[in-house]
């Protein structure tokens, strides 16, 4: 299994991802990848301490690129990580 942890910032509503040093970032490519269920569950449990800054944390399946960068597996999570396909809005405007 390959999973990353995602949520939304409580105030801005922005889509965020957990990194290896337990920080939240807006780029899914910087997320920490969990290779086993125990690590994933522990990370999810960590979000219980974060309820004042985020909402609705959950794990998503990812694929790794050749360089080991996580890429959401489902279409919806891809759109969530990138932005809508009808306007150049959202995360795609912030990425290089």
């Amino acid at each position: 299994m390959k999973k990353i942890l995602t949520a939304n910032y409580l105030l801005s509503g922005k889509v965020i991802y957990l990194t290896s040093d337990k920080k939240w970032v807006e780029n899914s490519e910087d997320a920490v990848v969990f290779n086993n269920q125990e690590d994933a569950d522990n990370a999810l449990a960590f979000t219980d301490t974060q309820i004042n800054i985020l909402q609705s944390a959950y794990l998503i399946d990812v694929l790794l690129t050749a360089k080991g960068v996580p890429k959401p597996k489902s279409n919806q999570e891809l759109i969530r990580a990138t932005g809508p396909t009808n306007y150049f809005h959202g995360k795609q405007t912030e990425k290089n």
Partner: protein
Amino acid sequence: MYSYNDFDKNFVRQRVNEFRGQVQRRIDGVLTEEEFKPLRLQNGLYMQVHSYMIRIAIPYGTLSSKQIRQLALIAEKYDKGYGHFTTRQNIQYNWIKLSDVADLLDDLAEVDMHAIQTSGNCIRNITSDHFAGAAADEIEDPRPTAELLRQWSTGHPEYAFLPRKFKIAVSGSPNDRAAIAFHDIGICVVKNNNGETGYKIYIGGGQGRTPRIGRMLSKFIPKKQLLNYLDSVMHVYNRFGRRDNIYKARIKILVDELGINETRRQIYEHYDSIKNEVRQPSTDIAKFITDEFSPPDFSNVKKHDLEKDFIGSLLFKNWAETNLTPHRDPNHVIVSISLKKPGATPGDASVKQMRVLADLAEQYAYDELCVSHEQNIILPHVPKQHVIKIYNKLNEVDLATSNIGMVSDIISCPGMDYCKLATARSIPIAKQIATRFSDLKTERDIGPLKIKISGCINACGHHHIGHIGILGLDRGGVENYQITLGGDGTEDAHIGERTGPGFSADKLIEAIEAIINVYLNNRKNRNETFLNYYRRVGLSPFKLAIYQNKLSK
């Protein structure tokens, strides 16, 4: 137009203040997300794909220029410069911050608007005919009834915890433009043999995963009994509606399970016990509501020959052919403004466009607009002499597309680009189809044709009632689109029939083209519309055309 009295104003302001406090308690960590979620949903605030989304009620679609100007301001202040008009005559904003919501709702309250009951298991925004008050075929303006129902259902404790959401539509015309047969309750203003005005009531219609045409509950309910009657429907729904399974909880399933006769018997049992109670407002209040919708004084408008304006402006003439509808006053017309420029997102309007709409309504159209469930904007009362001025101004802001009721006037839900429930995208499909057939000659040759696209089985894009309906699904992680044919949301209500297996996004356009070609090559003549042709020949020739080339996978 109905404007809030002090009671309405206080009610909305108090609600905003209450929600402001609840938001603050969530931010302070006093409320968990689980505790806060039902509170935010009661105020129209969802967590969607990219951010928070707020859905704002536009009762029966009617807006003043002041209101749409404020909607533009909200798009500018709190969103990304546009709003999305929905198939329930509402508006949604997709990029909202929790920290802004209370201020946004305060801005809305300034113009007598709110987001209450736009979510949750309650009676939702009451919808109506977008030509209300203007249509030549109207028995009566349906909006005083819709407004009465808005007041009756807003904050009503008995309807705050229904088994599931509940949608009511009201039409004042025998020609149904409000899809009343596809609502939990559909109400049609009728006259009985004595010439008295009352209501024909349909129950248990709807789309979603179990599409149903509303079943006739009563052919005539006297006006003064409407609230007693509807209260009886809600009583039976509250009492017997299923709560064990979200997919079986709509009233249409109760009607399926009980049968219409037993449903009717239950409703009348309650109705007979309460029909001497007084639920209708007093004569004064009823008159007040009706007077609020008094039509403008049309008598000062001079006769104007629109044909003369066509000379030298073929584009204007083309636009007038599709976007104008006769008004009940011969010196006026109803103007439909398309939010469906091919290549644009159906139902979206920019800040600039909304401001132009506000200006046009104010200058030329008695300060009134209406959002249609087909995601367009209507100017219900336009003196003929002003039509060309309106057209020219619309042209400056990409709002002069002449396609009302044509192939490129596509209804589309937000789909997976914005909606968490979606299983596929719908906006890109709408854009592709509209662009493919937007050439004026092709579009005019095809004639009236309603294409409706939903990005999931919940059918917000009304695919079941599209002449061509498209339903986006997920097949092993790939978007796949099923086609239905022959749906109709009018008084001649039909649910579309599925052609068979679905198509990938790239093959779908070919399939739609094949369907349209079957029609063009085989219709009796140009007067036989796509829908009439389909009704004559059925699915077979279409199936043959789209499956013989193995377009589907």
